[in-house]
C-alpha cells in the first residue's frame, strides 16, 4: 500500500524518467535537441487539449468531445481563409471551439446530466458537423508558406506551437495555484457540497470550464490546420485516449479536486517522448494506441487502489459516482 501511494505520487517523474531511459537505450540518437524539439512539437497538440481537460477534470467533469472540436475548428479556420483572410479565419476557428465548449457546458449544467454521457453525444454531433461541412474530404488552405513558418524551430528548440503550449501551461499553473477562481475550481471538484455552502458559484465554474476546454481544443485544431495547411474531418479522433492518458499520468484524478498544470506538462512530455520513440522505431500507430490505452487503464486502477483507502471523510468522487456534480451535495 505504502509503495503504491509513493508510486502514485511520483508517477510523472517515474514514468517520464523510465520513458527517456528506455527510449535512449533502444533508440539510437534519441537524446538530442532535435528529437526533443520534434517531440515537444508533436506533444503540443495533445498538450493544448490537455490544458483544457486538466481544468475540467479538477472541477470533477470531463470532455470527450475535444478531438471532434479539434477537427471542426481546424476545418472552419481553413475554409474561411479564402473569404476573410488567414488571421480572422483562425480567430473564428478558435471561437468555434469556445462555442462548442459553451454548448457542452450549458447542456451539462442545464440538464444536470453526467458529462461523460453528454460529451459522448456532442462528440458525435461535432464530428458529424465536421464531415458535413467538408463533405468528408480534406480541405486545404491558401498559404503554404505559413505552415513552413509555423513549423520553423526557434532557439533550436521551440516551434511557435510548442512555445505557446509551454507559455500557456505556465500561465495555467499560476492561475490554478495563485488565483481565487483557480482555487475555487479545486473546491468545486473536491467537495461540491462544501463549495456550494460557502457561496461558490459551482455551476458557473463548471460552465466556464467547458468553454475553456473547448477553446483550447479549438486552438489546438486551428494550429494543426495551419501547420499542415489542411483541415480534415478525421483529425483528432485518436487524440481522446492519449489526452486523457497524459492528464492522468500527470496526477490529475478523474474523481476531481486534484491535479496540477506542471503534472500535466510532465504527462504530455511522457506521452510525447513515447510517441517519438515509437515512431523512430517504426512501431505502427495501432500499437501506440495500445500503449496509451494500457497506461490509462493501469493508472486509473492505481488511483482507485490508492484513493479507496485514506479518502478524507465528506468527499464524494464526482465522476466515479456517475452523478453530475451540479446535483451533488447533501440537503
Amino acid at each position, binding site marked *: 500500500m505504502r509503495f503504491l501511494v509513493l508510486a502514485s505520487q511520483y508517477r510523472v517523474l517515474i514514468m517520464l524518467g523510465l520513458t527517456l531511459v528506455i527510449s535512449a537505450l533502444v533508440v539510437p540518437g534519441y537524446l538530442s535537441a532535435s528529437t526533443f524539439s520534434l517531440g515537444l512539437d508533436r506533444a503540443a497538440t495533445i498538450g493544448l487539449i490537455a490544458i483544457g481537460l486538466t481544468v475540467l477534470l479538477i472541477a470533477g467533469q470531463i470532455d470527450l468531445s475535444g478531438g471532434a472540436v479539434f477537427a471542426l475548428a481546424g476545418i472552419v479556420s481553413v475554409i474561411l481563409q479564402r473569404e476573410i483572410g488567414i488571421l480572422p479565419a483562425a480567430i473564428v476557428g478558435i471561437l468555434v471551439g469556445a462555442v462548442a465548449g459553451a454548448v457542452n457546458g450549458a447542456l451539462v449544467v442545464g440538464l444536470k446530466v453526467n458529462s461523460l454521457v453528454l460529451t459522448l453525444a456532442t462528440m458525435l454531433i461535432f464530428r458529424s458537423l465536421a464531415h458535413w461541412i467538408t463533405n468528408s474530404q480534406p480541405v486545404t488552405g491558401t498559404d503554404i508558406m505559413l505552415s513552413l513558418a509555423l513549423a520553423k524551430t526557434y532557439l533550436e528548440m521551440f516551434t511557435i506551437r510548442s512555445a505557446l503550449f509551454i507559455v500557456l501551461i505556465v500561465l495555467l499553473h499560476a492561475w490554478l495555484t495563485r488565483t481565487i*477562481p483557480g482555487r475555487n475550481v*479545486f473546491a468545486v471538484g473536491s467537495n461540491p457540497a462544501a463549495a456550494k455552502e460557502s457561496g461558490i458559484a459551482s455551476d458557473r465554474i463548471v460552465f466556464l470550464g467547458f468553454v475553456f476546454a473547448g477553446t483550447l481544443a479549438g486552438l489546438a485544431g486551428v494550429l494543426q490546420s495551419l501547420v499542415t495547411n489542411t483541415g480534415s474531418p478525421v483529425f483528432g479522433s485518436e487524440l481522446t485516449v492519449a489526452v486523457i492518458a497524459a492528464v492522468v499520468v500527470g496526477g490529475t484524478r478523474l474523481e476531481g479536486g486534484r491535479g496540477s498544470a506542471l503534472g500535466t506538462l510532465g504527462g504530455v512530455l511522457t506521452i510525447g517522448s513515447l510517441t517519438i520513440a515509437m515512431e523512430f522505431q517504426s512501431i505502427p500507430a495501432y500499437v501506440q494506441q495500445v500503449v496509451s490505452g494500457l497506461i490509462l487503464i493501469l493508472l486509473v486502477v492505481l488511483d482507485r487502489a490508492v484513493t479507496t483507502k485514506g*479518502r478524507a471523510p*465528506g468527499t464524494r468522487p464526482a465522476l466515479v459516482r456517475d452523478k453530475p456534480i451540479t446535483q451533488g451535495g447533501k440537503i
Partner: protein
Amino acid sequence: MTAVADCALDMRGISKTFPGVKALSNVNFAVRFGTVHAVVGENGAGKSTLMKVLNGSYAPTSGTIRVGGNEVRMRKPADAQALGIRMVHQEINLVPDLTVAENVYLGRMPGKWTWLRKGEMIRKAAAVLKELGAAINPRERLGNLSISQQQLVEIAKAYAAQPRIIVLDEPTSSLSEHETAALFRILRKMRGEGIAIIYISHRLKEVLEIADEVTVLRDGSMIETRPIEGITAAEMIRLMVGREVSNVFPKSQAEIGASVLRVERIGDGASFRDVSFDVRAGEILGLTGLVGAGRTEVARAIFGLSRLVEGSVVVNGRKVVINSPSEAVRAGIAYVPEDRKGDGIVPAMSVRENISLPILRRLARFGRIRRSADRSLSATYVKQFSISPPDGERRINLLSGGNQQKAVIAKWLAAKPAVLILDEPTRGVDVGAKAEIHHIIGQLVADGMAVVMISSELPEILGVCDRVVVMRDGRASTPLTRAELSEERIMALATGEEAA
C-alpha cells in the same frame, strides 16, 4: 427574562410541519450574547429541525425569528450567514484537497481582482488558528489532518467569519478528552467576546461543564429553558425522557430457546470494537445508544456489508465467516436496513419484485422465475402483513412508509432466516403501522425466530425487548434484563453518565 438589547436570538412560536408530521410545535427559544446555550433532547426531539430553521435551510411554518432584536426572514443558508449566523456541522463539510487556510476562507478568500493574496490569507488563518489554540499548519492539505483537527478547522472557519451567533452540532463527537478541553477554552474565549453560542450535545457532562443555560426539547416541543446552575444530569434526562411509560408496546410472550446468534469481541477496526452479545430463539434483543455509537455499523458488519477485522460470529453453534450478504443469508442471518429509501427498497420495482429479490434463485427453474411461485409468495406476505393496498403489483414507492417497511421485512422472511436484525424498523412510520410492525415482530419470535432490534426510541426498546445492549462510542454494555431496564438507566449508559 432579559433585556432585548443583549438578546442575540429570539425565536417565538416556531412550528414546522412536514406533510403528515409536526416536527416542531410552538417552540420558543432565546439566546443571549456572550453565553453558551445548550440544547438537549433525544434523537428526533427536533433539535436538528430547529437548527435548520435557524440557518435558513427550512422556512418555519409559523413563528417569528429575531436576530439582535430585528425580525428577520431567512430563505437560504446564505441569508443566515449574512446575519452573522454560522453553523458547525457534526459531519465535516470541508474541501480535503485545499489547504487549511483556503478552507478557513472558502468562498471569501482575500485578493485583488482574481489574484489571491496568499500570504495575507495564510497569515490571517494562522492568527485565527493560534487564537483558537490549535496547532495546525495553515499550509497543510486539509485531507492530511486527523478528523479532530479537521473539526477544529471547521470551527476556525466559522470563527474567522466573525459571527454573532455560532451553532455547534455535537462538536465533540470525534474529539478526545484533551481536545474537548481545548475546544472548551475556545468556546469560553468566544463567549468572552460576546458571541452567542448554541451548543447541541448528547453529552450531559459536557453540557454541565460549558453551558450557561440549557433548553430541553422533546417530541418537537420546548420543554424547559433553565440556567445551568441547580440542574443535574439526572434531571435533564428526566426532562428529555419525561413521558409516562404507557403500555403501547405490549410485550408478546414467547418461549425462549437456545442461543441462535452469538458475536464475540467483534470489531471493524474503525467504528466499534470488543462488542459481544448473543440472542436466543424467541427472544428480542434490543441494541440502542445514541446516533453514531456504532449500532448500525455492528449490524452491517454482521450481515457482510462491511468487514470485521476481529472477533467471531457463531450461528446455531457453528462459527461462520461472512464476507457478503449472500453468505450471511446462507448462514441464516437477515438484515432490514436503517435507511429504507437508500438500502431497503428498489423504488422502481413492484412490491412483489422487492419481496422475492433475496430468494430469486430459489424461485427459478432453469433460470426462469416461476411466475406462480413469485406471485403466491408476495400474495402470502401482502395478506399476512396486511400490506395496503393489497396489491403486489403496485410500485413499492407508491406505498406509505409503514407499508414499505412491512414489505422490506417480508422480503427477508421468505429467506427463512434464523436471526433477523432490524435497524430502526419503525422510524418514520405512523403510529398504526408501528403497532402492526411490532405485532409482526411478536409473531416472528413466537415462531421461534431470534430478533435483534436496533432502535433509538426508548419506549419502543423498553416495551418490546427482552434484553437490551446499550452502545456508546463503539463499545457495548453487558445486556440488561427486563428487570434492570429503565429509560433513565439506558440514557445514563448511552451518555456515559454510568460506566458500562
